């Protein structure tokens, strides 16, 4: 596990993947995406004073523990597709929460959002694209990390419609840190972008070590590459909760 706190010097340890493009809120203001509403208008924020007790009560019950995806199937393998692989994790997590069967979804099938190039994207654009096109089952592309859909099995576009985020909340209207903690404590995973790391991730657990809070993500860099973020590093620049996905 890799830890990041306020005193961590961020180095370009992943060779400049730059998978996350910062969302320009002047062009795409909060609440302007379809099928969304501000989290803080829908849900009362849980005060930080209650977090330690709630963390105790939620042990073994966070999104991390419900999630059935694996580091192998979620590995982005150098593609600048963190925005896609982590959103795919969140959609799978929403399926797990609903008790739907596990499906290994093909994160590459969101490549149409960047014209099938190996390019970065911002989370809001990714979630909007996924809600319109869906994410297909990995079995349609036997060769992993292939961004040429003409080589995939026919019918993948129709199958992808079975796996769409339908409704989601946007976080950050009031207080990004408190809203993120609240969503995690309610059992949701949170799809986030960290501009300092140029990286998108799925946050799945809130932790407390007696002195500081941290958020945990399985990350999409393979086995053993999960991150634990604390201090200012745990506050996303962009964050969403997929609350409903397609029933399939």
């Amino acid at each position, binding site marked *: 596990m890799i830890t990041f706190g306020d005193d961590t010097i961020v180095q370009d340890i992943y060779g400049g993947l730059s998978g996350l493009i910062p969302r320009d809120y002047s062009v795409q203001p909060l609440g302007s995406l379809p099928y969304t509403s501000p989290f803080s208008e829908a849900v009362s924020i849980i005060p930080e004073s209650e977090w330690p*007790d709630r963390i105790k009560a939620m042990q073994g019950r*966070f999104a991390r523990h*419900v999630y059935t995806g694996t580091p192998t199937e979620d590995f982005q393998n150098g593609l600048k597709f963190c925005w896609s692989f982590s959103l795919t994790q969140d959609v799978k997590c929403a399926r797990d929460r609903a008790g739907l069967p596990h499906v290994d979804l093909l994160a590459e099938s969101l490549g149409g959002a960047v014209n099938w190039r190996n390019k970065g994207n911002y989370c809001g654009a990714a979630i909007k694209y996924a809600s319109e096109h869906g994410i297909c089952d990995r079995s349609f592309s036997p060769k992993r990390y292939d961004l040429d859909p003409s080589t995939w099995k026919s019918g993948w576009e129709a199958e992808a419609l079975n796996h769409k985020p339908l409704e989601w909340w946007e976080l950050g209207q009031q207080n990004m840190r408190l809203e993120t903690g609240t969503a995690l404590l*309610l059992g949701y995973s949170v799809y986030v972008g960290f501009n300092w790391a140029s990286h998108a991730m799925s946050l799945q657990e809130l932790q407390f070590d007696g002195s500081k809070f941290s958020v945990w993500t399985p990350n999409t860099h393979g086995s053993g590459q999960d991150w634990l973020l604390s201090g200012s590093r745990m506050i996303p620049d962009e964050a969403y909760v997929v609350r*409903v996905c397609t*029933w399939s």
Partner: protein
Amino acid sequence: MNAKKRFALVLCLVCLTGAWWTQWGPAIEVPFISWLWPSSKPAKVFVVRESSDAIKLTVPQLAWINSPKLAADCKVAGIELHVIDPDVKDRDGKMPTELAPVIERATKAGLPRMIFVGSSGRLTDFALPSDDASARAQIGIGGTP
């Protein structure tokens, strides 16, 4: 008709009525008389709640509806456990046929609600259990949180 035949006829009618009630009769959530008729384990259990109402649930309720252990124990007992939002849709943007009666029943009774679907499709609805132990008892599975 002699007394024996009358007795047999009445017995038959009672049995048939009981069978009908068990299969299609209305669910009655009255613990002190519930032993009067047999109940089988549900085939599916649905927790229907508004996503935004998660904050209104108590911490023990939140803990059990998010419990992978409880879900796994249900699975071992042959029961599907689903936690759903009434806004859920299928790929065509319609309410899934399978869920329509469940959501209708839950919404009518008032959310959040726990709905049992029997193997015959019979629905029974309950208030959301207060914690893991109550949920296990209500669903009819053993085990510990």
